[in-house]
Structures are given as structure tokens and as C-alpha cells.
């Protein structure tokens, strides 16, 4: 396991600066929450980390070395927001997971070994291994999101980035996914960058929180401290706006 570090990362699209000199660390075995409004650059930061967009400057390192974006091993994995578009509708969920298995590990070589590994992963996210041959269309949103988590775990990642993984889900299903995230973290000691616009959700899963506004990180620290005694005006504004804060 190793820590994920963003150092002075800047990402630009044309003339707009989406991420502006961001430095952030995801320490080993912790869940770091990243909150902020739409357009504040959260997803761009995540996509830069996994190599889906190219940062203009700065470094993103994993255990001191640049995050590898080529080759069979991808120690940084990502789970996407929309469970309905993150699984190939024509590929069985088992194949989707198998595709992400590292190809250079001895214990997942061979058809049988891969099938066993897929079964193990499905069980890990509380899905029946017999469903490996189902197409995504037969799964509910929450189940799909669990498959997406299993796929991310298949790559034996050291860090997982979760980008708004519950915001497309109904509240009744969101709870199950959040429970799973906490459980996996506790069992596997996973490090995670958990992106969400929902403060209550981040509070529930993350031990540290970073607040992002206009491409910059304006405040970062332990969850209890940042949410309990915010220092930046913007964090205070976010907290004040969170529903359920007013005495009714």
C-alpha cells in the first residue's frame, strides 16, 4: 500500500482552468472526502489521476512514483458516477470484472483461476457469484454500482477513487452502497478518494475532508474538525446550506 499525492496539479481546458495548483494527499488506509459544487474541479482531478485527462503541470504520485497509466498493472482504480453507463450493456458483469484483473499475476492466470477470482470479488460486494453471466440490464442501480466497485477492486488497487458513486442512486439504495464502502475499507484497509457534493455522505465515510472551490482546495483536515469548526468562509457557507441544518 502506498499513498496518493497530488502536488501542485493544474488542469486546463482551453482557457478555463479546471484544477488550479491543487496539492492533496490520500494517506495509506484512509478515506479522504472531496467536497465542492459542480464545476469546482473534483471530477477533473480524479480523471487526471487515472490518466483520462492530462494535467498541464504538477505531479501525481503513488508511493513516490508517478501513477502508471500504461501496462497491465493499474494500482489506481476509479468508480464512476452513473451505474447505468459505467457497465458495457453487452458484456456480462463477470467479463467486465475479469477484464480488469491484472494479467501478470500468477494467481489469476488461467480460465479457472480467473473465474474463481471473479466469484470471490462478487461475494466481496455481496452479489451472488452465480450472477457472473448476467448482463447489466438485469441488475438494479445499486447492484450495478457494487459490480463497478468489484471491478475496481479486481485490479488489486492501492487506492480507489470514487466519483459521486451514490448521487445517481435512490436514497433507499445509497445506504447499502455506503455501508459497503465502509465495510471494504475496514476489511481491506483500502485507501480511497471519495468525491461527493453531499456533506452528510462524506461525513459518514471519510476520516479526512478536502473542500474544493473554483479549482482550488480551500480547506483540508480531519472530518470532525473541518465540519465541526470550519475555518474557510466557503466551508461555512456549504455547511449552512446543507439541508437539515436549520431548526425546523
Amino acid at each position, binding site marked *: 500500500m502506498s499513498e496518493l499525492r497530488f502536488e501542485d496539479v493544474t488542469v486546463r481546458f482551453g482557457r478555463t482552468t479546471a484544477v488550479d495548483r491543487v496539492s492533496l494527499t490520500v494517506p495509506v488506509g484512509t478515506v479522504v472526502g472531496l467536497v465542492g459544487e*459542480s464545476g469546482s474541479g473534483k471530477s477533473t482531478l480524479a480523471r487526471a489521476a487515472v490518466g483520462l485527462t492530462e494535467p498541464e503541470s504538477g505531479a501525481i504520485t503513488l508511493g513516490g512514483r508517478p501513477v502508471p497509466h500504461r501496462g497491465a498493472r493499474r494500482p489506481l482504480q476509479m468508480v464512476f458516477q452513473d451505474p447505468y453507463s459505467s457497465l458495457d450493456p453487452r458484456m456480462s458483469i463477470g467479463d467486465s470484472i475479469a477484464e480488469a484483473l491484472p494479467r501478470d499475476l500468477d494467481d489469476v492466470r488461467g480460465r479457472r483461476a480467473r473465474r474463481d477470482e471473479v466469484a470471490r470479488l462478487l461475494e466481496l460486494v455481496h452479489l*451472488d457469484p452465480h450472477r457472473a453471466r448476467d448482463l447489466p*440490464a438485469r441488475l438494479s442501480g445499486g447492484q450495478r454500482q457494487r459490480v463497478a466497485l468489484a471491478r475496481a477492486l479486481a485490479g488489486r488497487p492501492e487506492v480507489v477513487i470514487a466519483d459521486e458513486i451514490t448521487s445517481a442512486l435512490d436514497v433507499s439504495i445509497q445506504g447499502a452502497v455506503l455501508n459497503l464502502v465502509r465495510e471494504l475499507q475496514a476489511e481491506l484497509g483500502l485507501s480511497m478518494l471519495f468525491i461527493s457534493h453531499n456533506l452528510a455522505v462524506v461525513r459518514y465515510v471519510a476520516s479526512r475532508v478536502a473542500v474544493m472551490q473554483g479549482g482550488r482546495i480551500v480547506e483540508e483536515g480531519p472530518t470532525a474538525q473541518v465540519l465541526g469548526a470550519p475555518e474557510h468562509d466557503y466551508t461555512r457557507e456549504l455547511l449552512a446550506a446543507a439541508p437539515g441544518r436549520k431548526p425546523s
Partner: protein
Amino acid sequence: MASDHGRARRWRGVLTTPVGLTAAVLLVAVAVLTVLGPVLWGTSADAVDTRDVLATPSPEHWAGTDNLGRDILARTLVATRLSMVLAVCAITVAVAAGLLLGAAPYLLGGRAGRLVSAAVNVAVAFPGLLLALFFAVVFGVGATGAVMAVGLAGAPVFARLTQTLVAQVAGRDYVSAARVAGVGRLRILLRHVLPNIAEPLVVNATIGAGGALLAFSGLSFLGLGVQSPAYDWGRLLYDGISAIYVNPAAALAPGLAVLLAGLAFNLFGESVAKGFGVPVLVGAPELRSRGRAAAAAADAPTGTDGDPDEAADDVVLEVRDLEVVFPTATGTVRPVRGVSFDVRRGEAVGVVGESGSGKSLTALAVSRLVSEDGTVRAGRLRFLDQDLTAPDSPALRRMLGTSLAMVFQDPMTSFNPTRRIGRQLAEVATEHQGLGRAEALGRAVDRLDSVRIPDAGRRARQYPHEFSGGMRQRAMIGMGLMGTPSLVVADEPTTALDVTVQQQVLDLLAEIRAADDVALVLISHDVTVVAEVCDRVLVMYAGRIVEDVSAAGLATRAQHPYTRALVAAVPHMDTDLDQPLATIPGRPVDPAEVPAGCAYAARCPLADARCRAEDPPLVAAVDGSRVACWHAGEPLPDPVVRTAEDRTGLDALDADELVEAP
């Protein structure tokens, strides 16, 4: 497998339409002729009879003879093979070149990719015939030249289509996910992209084959296609037209052949495209009753909701046994199944429930806005003492236009993109309040100002895309304030907005409510928002109200197991971090498959035999709250038993979810 099954059904769907069937039969006929034509009629087609040249139709020669006395019908039938071979060759060239060019930008990426796609964009602007002429010059006059000409001329269109489709699929998260997982570009193209774009490509290739056939006849007609002594339909047509004054049938036979074959490809392609596209919700014609109103009196709805107390004087909106029915391919669905509630003057009523529970449809139904394929019925539907089940009339429209304000979920799409904001607001005044254009615009600016749009005068002249999301939503509220509303119906007005902006919109709604005693129906999937803004909350499940409870009592006094689970499932800023969140196993009920008995029974920890057999009615308690549950208020099993330590418990719950939909 499900998809195979679905595919078989869709094919059947295509082939059972008259058009699809005709096209398929024609296609088979063309295929048979291609194989057998020259075998069966080859000799008679070449039999020269100089005594009988340029004859008109007769029993021996149904379509007459040509200038060498050869039978035109036989020649037309024989020409099927060459015509089809050429068309198929041409479309193969077009598709192959198009696939290469279309996939290149994705594979190459970067500058090279952009160059290819720019080149395709330039080429696609030129019409096929022009390109065909160009290539006909380059490759020379004749069959090979024509194949290349028609093929290459079709390539840009296919390249563009492939490119668009590839770009669409490549933008999906599952492709990003595969990239993150370390799958290479070529592999992604082969495993994820091509399988997902195969259908539209094949359909378009089919239509393209028809186009190629017709293009060939065009080139041959110009004398640039197949040259004597070989002949295809175009060539026969060319010869036939020169003899049209003597024997029109000489042109008619090959002309018809080209047309029928071309039509076979086109109609078949179009039918398949339609059949495999987004399924359209249509039913038996007699179900397509359009009047929301007309049907109301006819059928007594079957809803079982208990009446709220006798309607009091200050009731703004009164709803009894509201139903919404849609026709589907297999019958009808009833996504709203007997809903009853009142909204009093100045009251804020929240509606919560999972996606698909019928919240939006209820809101649309009470505002007479359900799309026209749906039927709305109600025992009673009154707004400000007007019967909303009455047929449409100018007076009713004016009353609704000025007294009922609507706010919709997506501020990005709810304004007309081609009209200025000010005009869109002013329209209400010119239509219903008899104001002139300038006056109406003045009022619009005033209203925009009242919802705190800064610099309202200038903003009124802007287009919607120049507004931010929050401003648009405020402008939408301003539109409702053009009249003097008694009720604002807001369907997820803040779901698309950021939290800080959400708060401003909610505050604005609260202010309007306070200022003029305006009632509010606020739909949201967010229990916390509703609890904060509203006086009373209606909880909907599977098209029914299952609980009607005061907002203050939502967290503590809710009786229905669903309401209690919904409240407990949502983390809030004071949630106990040591406990797992409550979960609701299984999935929401599909309106097409509402079970007998309580719709929630499959997911309810309290469900028993009675629940599965009898639907509980919505009954009122002394404090005015209502609940529909046989076991209302009984203690729920402690959610703690469903933690990680107790895997078996979780798996058992999951097993519920695993039950496959029939």
C-alpha cells in the same frame, strides 16, 4: 439469455408490421433472383430475334423486345445478379473505407485523429453524386470505375456515422472504466465499441445498399456505368429510355426492378431501425383516449384511499382517487393508483418517494399537464372551486395560467432556447392578462427583479443559455409570479442545483409563500429538504400515498415501515458514525407489475400473509395523519443485525433482490 430473447421478440416485431414483412419478402425475392436469374432465363435473355425487334408487350414477350429482339423481361430478371453484385461491392467499399476512416480518429487520437476527422467533415459536405462523378472520371467509365466511384462516394457518410457512433460510445463511462483498468485502445474498440455500434451500422449499410443500387442506375443512365455487352438494370433503363416512344415497357420493366429492389433495402432498413430503436409506448387504439377530462366521469376509479376529512373552506386543491393510466405494448400501466389529498391555503405539502413512485405524474395530473397519451381519472379534482376534470376552455386556461405556477426539475431544458427570457415571461401577460407587448415586458422585468435577478432589464433581453442554473430556476419562479398564484407546484426544483444555490431557491419559495399565503406542493426525493421546507409530507410508494404525516413528525412519529426506512437510510449531519445505515432491500415496484396485496410487502420486514393478500387502505388517525399499513407503528427489527458480522443475514436480504423479474 434475456437479450437474445429480446432480440427475437424485436425481430418478430419488425417482421409482423406490414411494411417490414413486405420489405423482407421483396428482399428474399431479390436474393433468389440473384442466384437463379441467369440460370433460369440466361438463354432466353440472349436469344436474338431480328424479326421481332422493338416489339411492344405481347403474350410471348411480356415487356416487349429490344433493338435486337431480345426479351426485355428475361433480360431484366437476369440483370438482377449483376446489379446486386455491383451494389454489394460498392457498399462493401463504402463501409470498409468508412469504418477505417471513422475509427481512425479514435485509434490515432491527438493531432492525426483530428486531421482525419476534419478531412471527413470536409468530404461529407459534398453530395454523393458529385463525388461519384469525380471518381468516375478518375477511374474511367465502366463497371469497375462505377463500383469504386459509388463506393468511395459513400465512404464519407459512413465514416462520419462511424465516427459519431464511436465518439458516443467512447464517451461512456464503461469505456473510461476499461481504460482505467488497463485495456488497450484497439482492444476497447473491438470489445466494447464495435459490438455496441454494430446495429446502427448494419441498418445503415442495408439502407446504403439500396442507395448504391439507385446510384448505379443513375450512373448507367448517364452512360457512365456498365457498358455493353454487359448489362445491369441501369443499362437496360438507358437503352429502354431511348426507345420510350416506341415501347414504354422497355423502360418500365428495369425501372420497376430498380425501384422495387431499392425499396426493399430501404424499407427493410428503416423497419429494423424503428423496431430496434427506443421502444415506443403504444397500445390498442381504443385505449388511446386523449381527454384527461372526458374519461373522468365515465369510470369510477378503483383506488381505495380513505377520504381526508371533509374538505374545509380554505382548501386550494382537492384531489380524490386520482389515477393516471398509460397504454403500453402489452396492455396498460397505472403508475398513479388512487391518490387523495388536500392542499390548504398557504400550506406547504411535500411529496417524497423513490424514483418511479409516481410523484411527478401526480403533480402533472393535478395541473392538467400529463402528456397526451395518458389518461387521468379522478373522483374529484378541484382547484380554487373549478373542476379540473372539465373539458378545456379559455376561462379554465386563464384561471390556471394565472393562479397555478409550475417549477420543473431541470432549469437547463425548461426554457425555450430560441426565445429571450423576458419574452417568455411576458407571454403569460399577453395571453391571459390582456397586456400589450411593452407593458407585458415591463411586468416581466419587474417579476425578474422580484426574484432577485440582478440587472433584470438587461437580463430580460438575454437567452436562457446566458443564465446560470440557479438564475434560470428563479426566472422560472418569476414566470409563475406573472399572475397571482394561489398554488406553486414545484417538481424537484433544486435537484439539478448546487447546495448553496438550492438554499436560495428554497428560501425564495418560502418567501413567496409567506408574502401572499400561497400554497406549495414540493416534490423531492430528498427527505431532508422536504422535512425542512414543508408543513406536511405525503410519502408515495408504487403510485399510492402510503403515509401522510406532519413534517415535524417525519423523523419520530412516522408509522409506515417504508417511511421509517426511508428516513433512516439517509445519512444526515448528526448520523451515528458507529452504526451502519438502514437499507431497503430489493427494488421498487415496476408499475407494470404491481403485486396483489401491499405493494411494499416484498421489501417489508413486517410483511405477513395478510399483507401479501390484501392491500391496506389509507386510514386517518385522530391527529389528521394517514397511513396505509396493516402493522403501522409496530417495532421494526433492529437494523444492527444486518451488519457485516452477520453476513448470512445480509445475503438473505440480498437473495430477495436476486429474484429475477419474470
